[in-house]
């Protein structure tokens, strides 16, 4: 150990603190935390909502570049639209750059598919609250697990059909109700049915309607931490809802292999920002705001649920470990 410097390899640029007479190494604490994050891995739970056929499963598979979502390649004879909204969740562990992620995709077949879609959001709302309840029960346990398994929905991608006109009543109802318990990211599905101009007009209209109905989609303005966040998030909010196209087929374009959809009039490149906004959605959702989605879920939505629970029946009994029936791992 050499005098004055910890022995780990690190660049020796000038320190920031004016009260310090030397380098202590406090910034290494953050490095320790980063390494811990990498080692422990993390959970991420994404829910997709929208009527069938809008390419929800394909989009999730495209986002995570793996077959993580159950997909029916074309309608097979046996696949019927369920009579009520079902909740189907599938988990996969994927790894990248040394970071392990347990990704759970929660699909909601049957949503918006019936003739009468009254209250079709209820099973979804119930599912979301059930996950909060599960987490809360673990938290108030007398002997708690070190890492409580997190099945709470961190993000709900809502698929808006590309009608080109406006939001449907169902869209408004769903988003209005659920934006208070989950982070909603609206996307315009199958946007290759619109020209760029039509897309822009549709987006403007949708945004106006979202605003008129007081729908706070993610990233919510009220949770911007500071000016830096606000300016980053403002730019994102300007672009939302993202108009996306999904695909898991690859084609050769200009010597590169790209994900796309082949039509007689050309190949729609999914990751080409000139063709659609998939790349922006992916960067936003995964590369920059993944952690924030989890934090808003934990610090805001979960806390809201918890506060309500605590106020409701006058309190919760701390549970002994004998009471928990499931053995969570």
């Amino acid at each position, binding site marked *: 150990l050499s005098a004055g410097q910890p022995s780990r390899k690190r660049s020796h640029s000038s320190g920031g603190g004016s009260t310090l007479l030397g380098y202590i190494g406090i910034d290494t604490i953050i490095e320790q935390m980063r*390494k811990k994050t990498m080692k422990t891995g993390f959970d991420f739970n994404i829910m997709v909502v929208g009527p069938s056929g809008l390419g929800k499963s394909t989009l999730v598979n495209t986002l995570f570049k793996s077959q993580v979502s159950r997909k029916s390649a074309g309608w097979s004879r046996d696949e019927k639209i369920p009579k009520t909204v079902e909740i189907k969740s599938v988990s996969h562990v994927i790894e990248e750059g040394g970071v392990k992620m347990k990704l759970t995709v929660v699909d909601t077949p049957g949503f918006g598919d019936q003739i009468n879609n009254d209250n079709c959001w209820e099973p979804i709302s119930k599912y979301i609250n059930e996950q909060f309840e599960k987490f809360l029960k673990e938290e108030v346990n007398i002997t708690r697990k070190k890492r409580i398994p997190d099945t709470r929905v961190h993000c709900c991608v809502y698929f808006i059909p590309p009608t080109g006109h406006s939001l449907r009543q169902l869209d408004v109802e769903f988003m209005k109700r659920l934006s208070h318990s989950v982070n909603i990211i609206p996307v315009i599905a199958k946007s290759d049915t619109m020209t760029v101009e039509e897309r822009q007009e549709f987006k403007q209209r949708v945004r106006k309607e979202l605003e008129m109905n007081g729908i706070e989609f993610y990233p919510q303005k009220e949770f911007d931490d500071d000016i830096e966040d606000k300016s980053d998030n403002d730019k994102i909010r300007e672009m939302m809802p993202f108009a996306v196209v999904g695909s898991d087929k690859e084609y050769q374009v200009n010597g590169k292999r790209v994900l796309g959809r082949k039509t007689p009039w050309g190949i729609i490149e999914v990751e080409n920002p000139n063709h659609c906004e998939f790349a922006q959605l992916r960067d936003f959702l995964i590369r920059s705001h993944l952690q924030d989605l989890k934090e808003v879920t934990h610090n805001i939505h979960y806390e809201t649920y918890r506060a309500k629970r605590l106020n409701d029946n006058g309190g919760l009994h*701390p549970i002994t470990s004998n009471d928990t029936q499931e053995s969570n791992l």
Partner: protein
Amino acid sequence: MSQADKMDKMKQGQFTNPETPGYVGFANLPNQVHRKSVKKGFEFTLMVVGESGLGKSTLINSLFLTDLYPERVIPGAAEKIERTVQIEASTVEIEERGVKLRLTVVDTPGYGDAINSQDCFSTIIAYIDDQFERYLHDESGLNRRHIVDNRVHCCFYFISPLGHGLKPLDVQFMKAIHNKVNVVPVIAKADTLTLRERERLKRRILDEIDEHGIKIYHLPDAESDEDEDFKEQTRILKASIPFAVVGSNQQIEAKGKKVRGRLYPWGVVEVENPEHNDFLKLRTMLITHMQDLQEVTQDLHYENFRSDRLKRGGRLSSHGYVLPLSPAKAPEPEEMDKDMILQEKEAELRRMQEMIAKMQAQMQNQGEGDGQHV
């Protein structure tokens, strides 16, 4: 992606090229966590316990290169005898390369000073428990976004170099707190010992710690994927416990450069010279294990406290736990009086409100009668 994220990515170098087909990008998550942690900053509470005059304050100042106690007055013997153990917490905010650390040092003057030190650590234990209690209360409450963590994450216990090992007080105290806080034993004023004497003392202390079943903080072994330097450093640190330290805030001229040290007629003891004492090792250990110290406090000591507390019964209501008073703290007479005083005050308040309401009603009637506006 924001600029900061892009720069982080470039610095990482661990990433595959984002243009690589098949690259999703969630490997960027640790960077996102990093950014948020840097913004939030870090909190750490360090407690120092030991008899007066062992150099605790000097050492703390040396560790963090600050002056935590600028206006210190050293009490004389007469004053010391009268004193019971105090708890003095000082907080300082240190920033380095954009990372903020909010460090709280809890000093315990008066420990071991009285002629009869029989009960000198109950105050300290009560303080530690109190922080746990407070955290438990906050954690069970409604507004959890800004919980302040004042729990004691680490306790440096200063052992005098003048004895032949641990004193009975040392053993008793460490046994009383080893299940509540991470204990790091430190041999103070190590410059009173030769290197041989130091080794002997260290071994003696470790034996006694074993003998009495004292659980001191164990540095976790380096993970298998760490670089060799770090593994070696961890080995050296583990082998040097308990750390024998010398503290000083004075700059002395030695071998042509200015060093922090103590000037004796026979030479200069350099604080930051690993051949002279373990100061650097102590500091390295503290910094590289700050995260782990916090984790052990949270996952072990706090959870033990919490499950004990909850087993004694209670309900989680919106206002925090409603628990029966812990048996150690029987309701003090002052507290009972306080409740009564509170009730009386509330009754008085109600009476006053009724009076005011009556007066207002009267004034209104008068106003209407005379057509005047009061």
